């Protein structure tokens, strides 16, 4: 190390959003670990309170503040760090760092940028600089023109010839990008792209070329390695975040592999990166011609994937290199004896598959293209492609059993689906085979390399062979093994061969194959393909093997923790925090911890976190396979969210010891009917509900409870799974067009209470006794999903009586269900009337938030209780806190073309932040600024919906007027404001052919904040309101759609000056 660095500032990536998710918790945590190992004091800015990196044992000082130049400067001023790391917090951190550098702040405070110099970052971010830089070393980039006007964009397209691709500079994962086949499409796309960036790129289209990436590392001595290469299953044109990706590449010859590798090293040297970067290539499928598509001068989603795919900890090494080490001076973290200067040799294949949640949004396009929409991903490991892809399709967790053996899938127009891929693309290929399409035909339509298609075809052919087997007894061992090698699950085999009651029959398959000695082998990921002995605990299971790499102890001294699986809407980094904390407690209590999870973005799948990491499926079959081998003390199912929770009963029925609350009790809470009866027995109130099988039945029930009602169908055709309907017309509309109601598909209808507060309790119980708890309240009224709500803890605006009664109900239920471990309940409160709306006997999304605000780790307590170890009851009560935490949701609507950015009963946020303030408004303001809201400069557009919310907003409008803001309003709102004595500028609705029009103002960038409150609870596509909301999102203008939240935000920024927000670290809130 050249000069002594004592204190380093690290910028996190903030809330999880599409294109910037859990991978940055992993990379940041790795960097912090590396710094700590060197005795460097660390300061972290990251408002994402649910992350592992924002834990006191990971970073020294933690600021839950927005990662924006304003706040980062304030922290620098206060902390006086010697250096700053910009590469570990995604695009958010990078953009913020570049801004601080350009404005001279870093220089002013003498903060050294460690690792890659900022100039190198800027060279890669600006496409023209980038292309020029690569031209200097004769490296090819796509033919491209940087333009700043739409006219120039059209001229450039003429020169290149259509189709072309449009990209916006300086954006997250392809925002504002897309293909254009003609000038009209270009006109629209360019206008949109210019709303994100002053400069856009018009480029030659390389559609159909292979997409290949390299992860490259360089140290200050100019030593370079490529840790991994990866090949996209989908050809260029589909964002790498939207594509199935395999590592290592499968269809590249040695010459191609090393040609691109050599270029990667030439590029990293020329740009001058110290640390890690990612180079993306397009490779001609008919020659060795190539183009460099992109260089990311920072840790990325791909680098996290590469780390998990190879066992090479890229972020950890990059942090060490930033401190001045050479690669050859570091050791391979897996073998501990060989050098970190090497390139991993894999003896397996990994397959990454994206997870989409497009069902959660109304109106969104299902097409996958050059911008990213997926919300999570899985990584499957196998020793055949067939094994990896089938595992992966199951891991995605959307009801698929693999490439084959899925029911209820129909596609209207297979050819169109193949040409214009959607989130169902892989399953469409199976359907195509079924309909008789050949590999060549599918290749022609999709441009997916034949190699991948042939492998998929192998699975399909094998299914056809298996279908001819009449019974398990007639199934030859060789064929059974061949099926398992090709990744068939017991479920698939049961369905294909037996085709009766599959969940029972899969047990028969399991017993049969165990009798025949057909069981998986445990293999290590050791970075050197077994060349050197490695004590690695990073494991997976495969049927391409006859020998286990590890020994099993059978001493019941290990504890299995089931992780969260793919991040999805409703389950993300918070369950990773819970899992990691459970592992820590298991370790501290002297047990060996065993993790099962398959999400490459997580910290729980860092092999340093546990004694054994099984990077494999969270299915009954696989958990039982591991359980058979490990014979643990027990299994923890309550910290990974709903996936492990759903396994509880079946594991219990197979004599697996589920630690903590009994699976029978879990079932009593999960089963609507059983739970309802329990509440009735305990005399606890709940909204009236009924499970109904006909429209008439529903209407009769509505007569009893009145509209609006919450409708939860069990079969959804399109759009959201839940909906609130306010009249019979809406009801019929929903149940005929969007969902079904029948004996086969019953619908649950509940009374919907308006204007009610929603309150949550996160708690831990010990043998039926309430042990610790945290009660928090939603800012929005009930009707906004708890995951989309802004939550304040401790509660500020509810009666003491309410708190007391909620605590009492929690106690009653803990006792009745004999809870031992974490649980969460949600309530409606209107006046002092309290109704239970939900109860989960597992860790909840808000556990890390309340644990960190309380500074009392609920998961640690819960885990000790589950292990039957001594635990001290926290003496702190929520009323003792002198500060307030606020958790705010992060939405990714800008990524989801056409989706209606409105809040409803189904969750649509992709992430969250949690900030702490000395008072309510300070906490809210920090949280809102952290999820991307900005304090408006001058102009605010109001379209405040129903009279109730117009009234609700009246005080806020007064404050805005007093502060000198200009109000713009749609007709009704304008009239209402006028009646109340406020001036506003009347704007015409989007569908009116009049000026001044709302849309012109939004598109013209004249509005700083849009407040649009929907008129009723049903989402209306293509209505005026929708158009206003959607344009706000498309033109990147902050949007609020809830009156109570809007009021709170307006209050906050009117009362608190940005400059006056105190800069306090988490530790300083006492």
């Amino acid at each position, binding site marked *: 190390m050249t000069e002594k660095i004592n204190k380093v500032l690290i910028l996190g990536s903030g809330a999880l959003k599409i294109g910037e998710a859990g991978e940055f918790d992993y990379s940041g945590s790795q960097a912090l670990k590396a710094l700590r190992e060197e005795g460097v004091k660390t300061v972290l800015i990251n408002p994402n309170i649910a992350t592992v990196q924002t834990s006191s044992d990971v970073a020294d000082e933690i600021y839950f503040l927005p990662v924006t130049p304003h706040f980062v400067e304030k922290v620098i001023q206060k902390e006086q760090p010697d250096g700053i790391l910009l590469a570990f917090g995604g695009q958010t951190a990078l953009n913020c760092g570049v801004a601080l550098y350009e404005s001279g702040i870093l220089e002013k405070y003498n903060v050294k940028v460690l690792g890659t110099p900022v100039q190198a970052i800027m060279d890669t971010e600006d496409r023209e600089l980038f292309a020029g830089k690569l031209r200097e070393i004769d490296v090819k980039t796509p033919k491209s023109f940087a333009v700043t006007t739409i006219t120039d964009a059209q001229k450039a397209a003429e020169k290149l010839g259509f189709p072309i691709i449009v990209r916006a500079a300086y954006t997250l994962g392809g925002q504002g990008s897309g293909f254009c086949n003609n000038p009209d499409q270009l006109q629209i796309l360019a206008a949109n792209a210019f709303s994100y960036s002053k400069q856009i790129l018009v480029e030659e289209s390389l559609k159909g070329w292979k997409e290949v990436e390299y992860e490259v590392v360089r140290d200050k001595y100019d030593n370079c390695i490529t840790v991994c290469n990866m090949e996209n299953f989908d050809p260029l044109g589909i964002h790498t975040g939207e594509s199935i990706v395999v590592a290592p590449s499968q269809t590249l010859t*040695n010459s191609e592999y090393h040609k691109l590798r050599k270029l990667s090293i030439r590029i990293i040297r020329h740009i001058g990166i110290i640390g890690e970067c990612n180079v993306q290539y397009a490779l001609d499928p008919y020659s060795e011609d190539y183009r460099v598509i992109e260089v990311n001068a920072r840790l990325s989603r791909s680098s996290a994937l590469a780390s998990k795919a190879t066992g090479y900890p890229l972020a950890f090494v990059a942090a060490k290199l930033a401190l001045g080490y050479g690669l050859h001076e570091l050791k391979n973290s897996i073998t501990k004896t060989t*050098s970190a200067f090497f390139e991993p040799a894999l003896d397996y294949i990994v397959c990454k598959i994206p997870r989409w949640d497009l069902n959660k949004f109304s109106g969104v396009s299902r097409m996958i293209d050059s911008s990213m929409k997926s919300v999570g991903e899985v990584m499957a490991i196998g020793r055949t492609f067939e094994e990896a892809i089938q595992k992966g399709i199951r891991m995605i967790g959307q009801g698929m059993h693999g490439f084959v053996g899925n029911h209820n899938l129909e596609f209207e127009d297979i050819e169109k689906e193949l040409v214009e891929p959607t989130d169902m693309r892989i399953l469409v290929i199976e359907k195509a085979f079924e309909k008789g399409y050949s590999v060549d035909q599918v290749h022609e339509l999709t441009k997916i390399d034949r190699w991948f298609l042939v492998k998929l075809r192998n699975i399909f052919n094998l299914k056809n062979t298996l279908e001819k087997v009449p019974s398990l007894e007639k199934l030859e061992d060789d064929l059974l093994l061949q099926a398992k090698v090709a990744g068939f699950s017991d479920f698939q085999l049961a369905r294909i061969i037996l085709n009766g009651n599959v969940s029972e029959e899969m047990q028969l398959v399991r017993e049969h194959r165990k009798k025949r000695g057909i069981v998986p082998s445990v293999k290590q990921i050791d970075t050197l393909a077994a060349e050197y002995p490695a004590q690695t605990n990073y494991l997976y299971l495969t049927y391409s093997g006859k020998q286990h790499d590890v020994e099993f102890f059978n001493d019941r001294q290990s504890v299995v923790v089931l992780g969260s699986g793919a991040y999805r809407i409703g389950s993300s980094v918070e369950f990773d925090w819970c899992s990691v904390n459970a592992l820590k407690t298991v370790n501290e209590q002297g047990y060996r911890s065993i993790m099962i999870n398959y999400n490459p973005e997580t910290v729980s799948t860092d092999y340093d976190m546990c004694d054994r990491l099984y990077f494999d499926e969270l299915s009954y079959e696989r958990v039982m396979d591991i359980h058979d081998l490990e014979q643990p003390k027990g299994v923890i199912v309550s910290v990974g969210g709903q996936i492990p929770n759903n396994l509880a009963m079946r594991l219990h029925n197979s004599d697996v010891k589920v630690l903590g609350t009994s699976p029978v009790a879990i079932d009593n809470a999960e089963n609507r009917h059983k739970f309802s009866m329990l509440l009735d027995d305990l005399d606890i109130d709940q909204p009236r509900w009924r499970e109904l099988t006909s429209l008439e039945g529903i209407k009769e029930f509505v007569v009893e409870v009145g509209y609006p009602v919450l409708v939860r169908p069990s079969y959804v055709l399109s759009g959201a799974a839940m909906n609130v309907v306010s009249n019979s017309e809406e009801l019929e509309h929903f149940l005929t067009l969007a969902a079904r109601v029948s004996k086969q598909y019953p619908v649950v209808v509940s009374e919907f209470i308006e204007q009610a507060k929603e309150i949550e309790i996160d708690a831990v119980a010990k043998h039926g006794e309430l042990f610790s708890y945290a009660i928090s309240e939603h800012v929005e009224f009930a009707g906004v999903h708890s995951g989309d709500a802004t939550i304040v803890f401790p509660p500020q605006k509810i009666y003491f009586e309410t708190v007391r009664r909620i605590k009492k109900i929690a106690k009653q239920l803990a006792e009745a269900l004999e809870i031992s471990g974490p649980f969460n309940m949600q309530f409606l409160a209107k006046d002092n009337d309290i109704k239970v709306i939900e109860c989960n006997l597992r860790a909840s999304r808000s556990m890390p938030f309340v644990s960190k605000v309380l500074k009392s780790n609920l998961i640690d307590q819960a885990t000790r209780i589950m292990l039957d170890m001594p635990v001290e009851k926290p003496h702190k009560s929520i009323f003792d806190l002198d500060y307030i935490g606020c958790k705010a949701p992060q939405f990714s609507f800008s990524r989801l073309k056409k989706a209606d950015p409105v809040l409803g009963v189904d969750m649509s946020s992709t992430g969250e932040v949690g900030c702490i303030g000395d008072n309510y408004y300070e906490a809210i303001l920090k949280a809102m600024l952290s999820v991307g809201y900005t304090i408006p400069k001058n102009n605010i557009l109001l379209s405040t919906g129903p009279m109730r919310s117009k009234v609700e907003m009246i005080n806020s409008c007064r404050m805005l007027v007093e502060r000198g803001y200009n109000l713009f309003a749609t007709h009704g709102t304008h009239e209402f404001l006028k009646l109340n004595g406020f001036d506003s500028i009347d704007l015409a609705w989007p569908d009116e052919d009049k000026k001044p029009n709302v849309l012109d103002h939004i598109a013209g960038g004249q509005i700083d904040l849009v407040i649009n409150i929907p008129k009723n609870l049903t989402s209306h596509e293509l209505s005026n309101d929708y158009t206003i909301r959607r344009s706000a999102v498309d033109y990147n203008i902050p949007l609020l759609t809830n009156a109570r939240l809007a009021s709170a935000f307006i209050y906050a920024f009117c009362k608190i000056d940005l400059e006056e927000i105190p800069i306090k670290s988490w530790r300083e809130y006492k």
Partner: protein
Amino acid sequence: MMEYKKIRLKLEDGNEFEGYSFGYEGSTAGEVVFNTAMTGYPESLTDPSYRGQILVLTYPIVGNYGVPNEEEENNMFLFFESHTLHISALIISDYSAEYSHWNAQKSLGDWLKENKIPGIFGVDTRHITKLLREKGSMLGKVIFNNEEPEWYDPNQDNLVEQVTVKKKEVYGNGKHRILLIDCGVKYNIIRYLLERDTTVIRVPYNHDITKEEYDGLFISNGPGDPKLCKATIDQLAVAYGKDTPIFGICLGNQLMALAAAADTYKLKYGHRSHNQPVLQAGTNTAYITSQNHGFAIDNDTLGKDWEPLFINLNDNTNEGMKHRSKPFFSTQFHPEASGGPTDTAHLFDEFIAMIEASKQQG
């Protein structure tokens, strides 16, 4: 699987692995070694250094991009490392019978069949690799149809004799005359030399080099125990008397050491991969290299005129040496790559620079 016949691999230690045959349906014997490279099977299979060896590939999925065409340039195949396959048998985990690549002409299985080389897939190659790692390289037999051959230890034979060129051949027409002693040279070495304005005079390993005129001497890679290659060692001892630049690769490195009175020994299981890290001695410069060798120089026996040039970062073994005063150097790794990383290709430039310097002085 029904279309594939069973075939098995038997190791010296008694372990047997049954899999399916995808190559020539016959039996064979040899020394079992493993390679951890993830690409480059056409290159490896035609590398003369694998003579007599049953090759286990640790990367499990093989055959994906088929086998390239037999296009020639300068009398050498463009996409292979010699005129024929040299391995005795190929052992893999999962075979891609249907390949996909614009440059592919046939499947790996068909290529093996044409060349009468058995291939096995469907065995636990990681298990085999671990056995070789723990017990060292072993002899092995591939047994088809229960026809069990005798054990065969290729290291007892002068394998170089089998792979060296039979008579002098000349390539190119460049300004520097390179005398290449062929102990089993890979085509890419010749290609790299020709790219640098040379004429390559390829001679048999036991050719009398005193009769040749040359600006630089090159000692190639090759198979087997270097000590069995006495003819070349003797030639080298003579060449050391002159000041003409010498560059040796792999077996060439070992032969140059033996000619300088240093010693070589057999590694437990050798280095066969594309990811071997080497450090240039006395510097902070490190390279990823391609390697394929079972023997190594004993660093401690290097005489006072010689010093290590590169050291393996994983196990500190010798990766090259250089003469302290004369323009003689050698590498244990393969700067010509093919397959593998090309990071050290500049060593060929250094060789040419030495030749130019030597000519100026000369």
